[in-house]
């Protein structure tokens, strides 16, 4: 098996039963594994709520490490829609030409720094700086801020070895508090200022609400983007013919990116709390228990995707749920898609070949299931195109 491959640990049980039960700190989770069930459940917020004790819909649960409600993530419709309406135009800015030019400059600048044929470690030397520098565009903050975010490491809430790390979260919370205070007294042009001065339902957000949006923006867009970027480089190391094909047929960049999001599924699953005794996938679930929407499994559903375990850069019809589905679909998807599209375009321009040196897998453990989501470290040489 190639290093770039991400096996699907749910294939058998998805076909046999359609769900899997796992424990999580004494608050068990029924993982839903089929595309149709995942979609239906994501759509049905009345029976499967996101608006519960803050942190409970996350697996592993963050109930014991935070009280701040993440917004719009942990709010149900109709209030969810009011928050989304406030921030949605801001999060669509990646569609602007100028934004894309700036992002392209960030990516090509990074390639110039690391693509000399010497050995680099992709996660820390490439994906993390790319993610952080790109985030300055999304937040519209000075580029210098990226250095501080990079110093936080790859996980904002987690550190290697410990699943949940409260002290790491404090660094982020204190930073966001300070920035919001600053924005409150001095209105700038950044996302912090939009949140402190914008309105929802004709009133200003409280600082706690604004913090709930910012924490999510930092946390939700970090590991996910880092894994997507790292895994795509690993893919081109394993399948140089795909890089060559994109060079010949750059019009495939869009389908390639969507296929990578499907195949990588950087966010494995996300929970909901059941509000009334009901059934999913012919399985009874009790009020106040948890289910999860397993995007990673749904994205390999063999009843929908032909050859689900192959990454085909020209897959035309690709109804994946890598960015979620329905009300809570990913707010950062416009940005993440641009990051990935521009990454591939710049790869075609700048990189002849990705040579794999050494890889250390990042494997998540969910009950009996072990899912490779990416790499703790990935050493490669990037050979520049001349």
């Amino acid at each position, binding site marked *: 098996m190639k290093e770039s491959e991400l096996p699907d640990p749910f294939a058998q049980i998805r076909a046999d039963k359609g769900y899997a039960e796992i424990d999580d700190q004494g608050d068990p989770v029924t993982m839903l594994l089929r595309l149709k069930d995942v979609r239906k459940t994501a759509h049905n917020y009345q029976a499967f709520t996101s608006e519960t004790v803050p942190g409970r819909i996350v697996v592993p649960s963050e109930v014991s490490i935070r009280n701040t409600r993440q917004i719009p993530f942990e709010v149900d419709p109709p209030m969810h829609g009011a928050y989304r309406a406030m921030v949605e135009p801001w999060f669509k800015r990646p569609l602007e030409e100028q934004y894309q030019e700036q992002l392209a400059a960030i990516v090509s600048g990074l390639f110039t720094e690391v693509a000399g044929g010497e050995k680099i470690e992709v996660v820390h030397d490439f994906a993390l700086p790319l993610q952080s520098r790109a985030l300055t565009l999304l937040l519209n903050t000075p580029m210098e801020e990226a250095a501080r975010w990079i110093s936080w490491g790859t996980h904002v809430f987690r550190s290697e070895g410990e699943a949940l790390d409260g002290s790491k979260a404090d660094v982020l919370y204190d930073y966001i508090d300070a920035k919001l205070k600053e924005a409150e007294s001095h209105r700038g042009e950044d996302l912090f200022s939009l949140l402190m001065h914008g309105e929802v339902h004709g009133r200003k957000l409280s600082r706690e609400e604004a913090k709930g949006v910012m924490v999510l923006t930092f946390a939700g867009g970090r590991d996910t983007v880092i894994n997507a970027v790292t895994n795509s480089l690993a893919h081109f190391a394993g399948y140089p013919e795909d890089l060559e094909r994109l060079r010949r047929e750059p019009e495939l960049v869009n*389908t390639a990116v969507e296929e990578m999001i499907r195949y990588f599924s950087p966010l494995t699953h996300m929970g909901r709390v059941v509000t009334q005794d009901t059934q999913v996938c012919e399985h009874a679930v009790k009020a106040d228990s948890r289910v999860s929407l397993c995007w990673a499994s749904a994205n390999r559903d063999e009843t929908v995707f032909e050859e689900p375990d192959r990454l085909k850069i020209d897959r035309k*019809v690709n*109804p*994946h749920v890598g960015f979620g589905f329905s009300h809570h679909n990913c707010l950062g998807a*416009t940005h993440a898609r641009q990051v990935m599209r521009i990454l591939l375009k710049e790869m075609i321009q700048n990189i002849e070949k990705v040579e794999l040196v050494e890889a250390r897998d990042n494997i998540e453990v969910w009950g009996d299931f072990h899912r490779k989501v990416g790499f703790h470290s990935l050493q490669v040489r990037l050979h520049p195109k001349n």
Partner: protein
Amino acid sequence: MAKITFIASNGSSKIAEGFGGSLMELAVSHGIQGIDGDCGGVCSCATCHVHVAPGDMEKTGPASDIEKDMLELADGADEFSRLCCQIQVSDALDGIQLRVAK
């Protein structure tokens, strides 16, 4: 060439002339409000949802099963709903009317 009429949710209408590609791409390149095409046309986002004028359904044809599964959970979907990234522009579509969903 096909002339396609897009009617936005505020009632304003725009005619776009298409030569190839998908109806979603045509709408995006003409700045039709409400057609975002987030996923670039792979049938994953439903931000290209339109209602085809009843009389034009024959020209566009029916949705595929995969598209139907997406539409089943899309806001305001009805029997005239299509994800327009799944419809290729061709001369046969000349004169059709599409109402942007929502």
